[in-house]
């Protein structure tokens, strides 16, 4: 039999109907729903008198609009309406919902894996572009628009044109202090924000194999920032061990049987991709974005570029506009860029290991004067664990605000925003103009880099910090 990639295997398994000249009709195994992109879809169902075909394969939560200080007091009337609309829609169509009172509430892409809903080989969709996160488990997971949300609710299927396959192989070993976030930022920096357009990415290589599930999620999460709708990773023992015992994962003998099935999903030896790119892990340093796309970044020991550094005229113009928006002078060393805000959170980096990594840097130190720093756990479960492990205490003692779970400052659709003209070191995934608030200036970094920025009020090379603290301990 011809060797196949995991992408082909999962795709083929889900084809409900195929006809030449048409996209494939694909079956969807899990549909995640949140309050922002669903109201119009439910409204559409109601108008036509349609039902939800498989409420049992659908799971909803609220995350984008949720205040992280007092979640039950939503000042903004329209946001309140949207939350109320989701409650009503879930009740009316019998869809399970992790609401604000639920101990399972959290960012949709954090709770899917946490609850074991996300599993290898599944097709997973959600009206949210960072659905790619779930690809870390070897699931085919991608974001959809509201019309498609309505289509999946009504039919549990989607018409999809099969995309091409792109392998991104990360070879070698990462240096200390370099994290999954730096890897994905470096990939986007090197190959561009549209390298994945029209493709599904499979991330492979030694570095991926050594990563934990949470690190893999960070990588897949930002596939969309590389232009790909989906990014995934072949499952292995790390994947299976993560899932063992999770609420919605198979139990006992069923779990062992599932593992047998899941093992067959990994890309076969000798399978080919439409395109393959490689990156050497040893060449990756902690990354910081200086501009207004996730590709506009530099290593911590680098500088803000000059527009003339770029050959292409469109790019020169984009860089010029970005520098203007960011209020940065070309040639400024990255380590001299000052920040006034720090946000540790979002579906990219708000899991327990992210908070542990940040706490390690923060422990025993203080947030720099004039800096406002927030830690927003990705879910209520992450929050509980961080409190049990004493991480919350470390943050609070250092002067961080310790919040409830939600999307928070990642997109500022709730009260958490960065004021105009101010700089924020953020562990989220998008640094677009206005993303964290009108005129807000976002710098994307890893949790460790964000934590260090909070302490120093500017970006510092955590590789040096770590070396120093090891020295001190000796």
């Amino acid at each position: 039999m011809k060797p196949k990639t995991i992408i082909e295997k999962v795709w083929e398994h889900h084809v409900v109907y195929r006809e030449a000249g048409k996209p494939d009709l694909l079956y969807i195994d899990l549909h995640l729903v949140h309050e922002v992109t669903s109201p119009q879809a439910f409204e559409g169902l109601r108008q036509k008198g349609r039902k939800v075909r498989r409420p049992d394969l659908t799971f909803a939560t609220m995350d984008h609009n949720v205040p992280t200080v007092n979640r039950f007091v939503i000042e903004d009337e329209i946001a309140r309406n949207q939350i109320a609309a989701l409650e009503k829609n879930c009740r009316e169509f019998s869809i399970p919902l992790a609401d604000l009172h639920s101990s399972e509430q959290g960012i949709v892409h954090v709770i899917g894996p946490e609850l074991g809903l996300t599993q290898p080989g599944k097709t997973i969709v959600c009206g949210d572009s960072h659905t790619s996160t779930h690809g870390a488990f070897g699931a085919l997971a991608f974001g959809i628009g509201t019309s498609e949300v309505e289509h999946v609710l009504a039919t549990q299927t989607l018409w999809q044109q099969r995309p091409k396959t792109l392998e991104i192989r990360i070879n070698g070993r990462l240096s200390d202090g370099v994290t999954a976030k730096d890897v994905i930022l470096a990939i986007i920096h090197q190959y561009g924000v549209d390298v994945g357009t029209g493709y599904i990415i499979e991330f492979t290589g030694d570095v991926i194999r050594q990563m934990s599930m949470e690190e893999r999620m960070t990588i897949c999460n930002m596939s969309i920032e590389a232009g790909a709708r989906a990014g995934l990773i072949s499952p292995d023992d790390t994947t299976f061990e993560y899932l063992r015992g999770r609420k919605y994962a198979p139990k006992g003998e069923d779990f062992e049987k599932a593992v047998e099935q899941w093992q067959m999903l990994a890309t076969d030896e000798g399978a080919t991709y439409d395109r393959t790119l490689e990156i050497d892990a040893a060449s990756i340093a902690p990354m910081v974005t200086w501009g207004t796309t996730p590709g506009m970044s530099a290593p911590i020991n680098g500088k803000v570029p000059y527009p003339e550094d770029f050959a292409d005229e469109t790019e020169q113009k984009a860089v010029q506009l970005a520098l203007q928006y960011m209020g940065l002078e070309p040639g400024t060393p990255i380590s001299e860029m000052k920040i006034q805000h720090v946000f540790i959170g979002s579906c990219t980096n708000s899991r327990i290991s992210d908070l542990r990594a940040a706490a390690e840097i923060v422990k025993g130190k203080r947030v720099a004067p004039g800096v406002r720093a927030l830690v927003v756990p990705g879910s209520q479960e992450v929050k509980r664990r961080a409190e049990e492990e004493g991480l919350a205490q470390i943050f609070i003692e250092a002067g961080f605000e310790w919040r409830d779970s939600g999307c928070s400052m990642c997109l500022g659709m709730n009260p958490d925003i960065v004021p105009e003209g101010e700089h924020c070191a953020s562990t989220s995934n998008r640094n677009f103009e206005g993303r964290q608030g009108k005129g807000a200036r976002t710098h994307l970094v890893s949790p460790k880099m964000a934590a260090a920025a909070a302490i120093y009020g500017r970006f510092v090379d955590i590789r040096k910090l770590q070396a120093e603290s090891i020295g001190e301990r000796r």
Partner: protein
Amino acid sequence: MQPFTVHKGKVVGIDRANIDTDQIIPKQFLKRIERTGFGKFLFYDWRYLDGQILNPHFELNRPENEGATILVANENFGCGSSREHAPWALQDYGFQAVVAPSFADIFYNNCLKNGLLPIRLAKHDVEYLLHKSKRADYELTISLEEQRIYDESGFNRTFEIDSYRKQLLLKGWDEIDLTFMYESYIEEYEKKTLVI
């Protein structure tokens, strides 16, 4: 969905790459639960100074661009979030087609589902149109049937579109109704794979 057959309209150009959906429709307007009324918030942060006064320098606000129905922009248009509010806002404002060298995948799909036609053209053609669009009365005609976009002074290009999507657009069909015609296949799939 309204069928799309032939459209002739005024062109406005925004010569920027990577125009993301946060820019097309900022998140504070995503809280509505209706599908309509997003047009007045299109490109909000670029279009208004202090949220009220029109920014006279922004392309859409120039008097000669009033009533434009075809938008031309640079690479990777519509990147970022999956919000369908972006095509809704473009459409609600009055746009019927967007022309660019490349589009983000989800945005491209979302446009098609709403009858807003995304057209990919070669970079130098887009540059040409961006240049031409500076003229006050510059118009383009788009024939979806022929997959052709042209003006009256000799510009004439064909564009690619998936034949299945093209049929849906030409007829203005509701995709869910169409899928229901395949319901027996869905039932069969569910039985076979035991997704029950």
